[in-house]
């Protein structure tokens, strides 16, 4: 394993009965990279991601995340990654501050560290006015920005984002991607699934899953050349239609 690879999967497979949800995928993600993980619904993206974040045990193959083995060191992986899903929008009945200190707490941050992080986060996002409001009263776009920041709270090596921008407007999406760029610039590896093909263009490299297999993996530019189309949307359509 090269030192610069923070995720390395080799022939990773997950079976549900006779059904191969993930069929021998092999890929690696480099440190600080923004890696787009694409695929139609049911292609096996979520299952693959669950194996990488240590909540689903692979049927066969090998995988190493943040330097730890997914079979034997799932607990160590959990300490070193952040996770945010589309469904997740913090606890609505807790205030912004309470959410931050709760998640800081379960990742084992000290009180002083949580306090410092809370202050920084509130300043960065300009949340001074609403920091004592219940999260439920905030707009979806804000919630997603906060939950991304919360996923970064314990300074993980890798952040897994499962369709993070579902349901928000283009401007907020744009701002969200600026946050992603900043995190990547600071050295955090970003592993992101999305349905928006314009977002795929923002990624350093993109993999496209079809029926449990990775059918394409390259930079957006090279993928477009390979399939002789102008945009990622057409790449996706060509592959997904087979």
């Amino acid at each position, binding site marked *: 394993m090269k030192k610069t690879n923070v995720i390395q999967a080799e022939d990773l497979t997950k079976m549900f009965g006779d059904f191969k949800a993930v069929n021998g995928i092999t890929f690696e993600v480099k440190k600080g990279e923004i890696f787009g993980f694409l695929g139609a619904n049911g292609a096996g993206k979520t299952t693959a991601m669950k194996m990488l*974040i*240590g*909540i*689903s*045990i692979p049927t066969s193959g090998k995988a190493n995340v943040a330097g730890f083995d997914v079979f034997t060191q799932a*607990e160590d992986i*959990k*300490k070193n*990654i952040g*996770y*945010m*899903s589309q*469904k*997740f*929008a913090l*606890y*609505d*009945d*807790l205030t912004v501050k*309470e959410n931050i*200190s*709760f*998640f800081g*707490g*379960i*990742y*084992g941050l000290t009180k002083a560290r949580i306090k410092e992080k809370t202050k920084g986060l509130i300043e960065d996002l300009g949340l001074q006015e609403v920091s004592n409001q*219940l999260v439920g009263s905030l707009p979806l776009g804000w919630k997603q920005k906060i939950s991304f920041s919360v996923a970064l709270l314990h300074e993980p090596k890798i952040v*897994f984002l499962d369709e993070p921008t579902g349901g928000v407007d283009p401007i907020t999406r744009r701002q969200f991607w600026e946050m992603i760029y900043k995190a990547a610039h600071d050295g955090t590896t970003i592993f992101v699934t999305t349905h928006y093909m314009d977002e795929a263009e923002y990624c350093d490299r993109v993999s496209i899953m079809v029926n449990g297999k990775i059918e394409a993996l390259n930079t957006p530019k090279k993928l477009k050349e390979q399939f002789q189309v102008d945009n990622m949307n057409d790449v996706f359509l060509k592959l997904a239609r087979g």
Partner: protein
Amino acid sequence: MKRFIGFITKEFYHIFRDTRSLFILFGMPIVQILLFGFAITNEINNVDIAILDHSKDATTKEIINKISASKYFSIKQILERETDIEAVFKKGKVKAVLNFETDFSKNLIKDHQATVQIITDATDPNTANTISNYINSILQNYQQEQNKAIQIDYVIVPEPRMVYNPELKSVYMFVPGVMTIILMLVSAMMTSISITREKELGTMEILLVSPIKPFQVIIGKVFPYIFLSVINAVVIVLLSIFIFKMPIQGSLFLLALESVLFIISALALGILISTMSATQQTAMMISLMGLMLPVILLSGFIFPISSMPLSLQVLSNIIPAKWFIIILKGIMLKGVGIEFIWKETFILMGMTILFIGLSIKKYKIRLE
């Protein structure tokens, strides 16, 4: 440990910021115990009855006086004709009519026998039955008084004595039942809802991805409800002692231990339900249909198990509440110690272990 405290703090925020759960937690027990204690009662008091007296002689007058002197009945109306009986029932003014035959006294002396008809409104069968029994016993009482003068060679005098609840107060019967229901409701339903809520909102996934261990998540979710259930049990016991003057005969310590055992078994059930349901609504339906109904119908709380059909009697054995009610009645009313309820305690323990085992197994499968 620090993580754990943070987790529990969060749970308390959830509970105290949700008016619905606050009501179920604190309003419900008080409302239920007061309702069952005051409103819903099997005792009869000042029941309105009517009299149709065809003979109007000394004996019937004495009997009528005796009945109206009791605190159970008040005579609302004196009827004149047979046809009035139907009318007065239809109006719903009285619950019973006493119909004395003509020449009551004369018959009594001549034939040593006279008839009085007791007609009750059986739209409410329990009350009708009770009224009829009460009137019967007043009549028997009267008869015995009269017979004192007469010499009979032998006589059988039944002397009923009701032990453990001599005044037959219904609240004595309801307190153990209501306590069981409340503990079941708070522990099983509230936990299953609170766990499925995290699943439904997707926060459970986040918790599973975090370094906090699954069993810590579950214990963190369950812990506040153990605490709140214990408070509820204390409130119920205090209400029954101070408002309903119900004595607790047995050891309070034993009562507390047994209650904690039942709370744990209900919590385990709640966790089990949460592993089976994906949404809060499903969890609530399963809790209500699968737990509350059996607890109310088959636990012996309202309907005596011994008079159920055999199949239901057998079925009632698998309901933890049945055993807990037996234990509660034993400690509260009879004042027995563990030596009399060890069997029920063991059954309850066995069930608890089974539920915990099942939910751990289910929970693991779900994680996979």
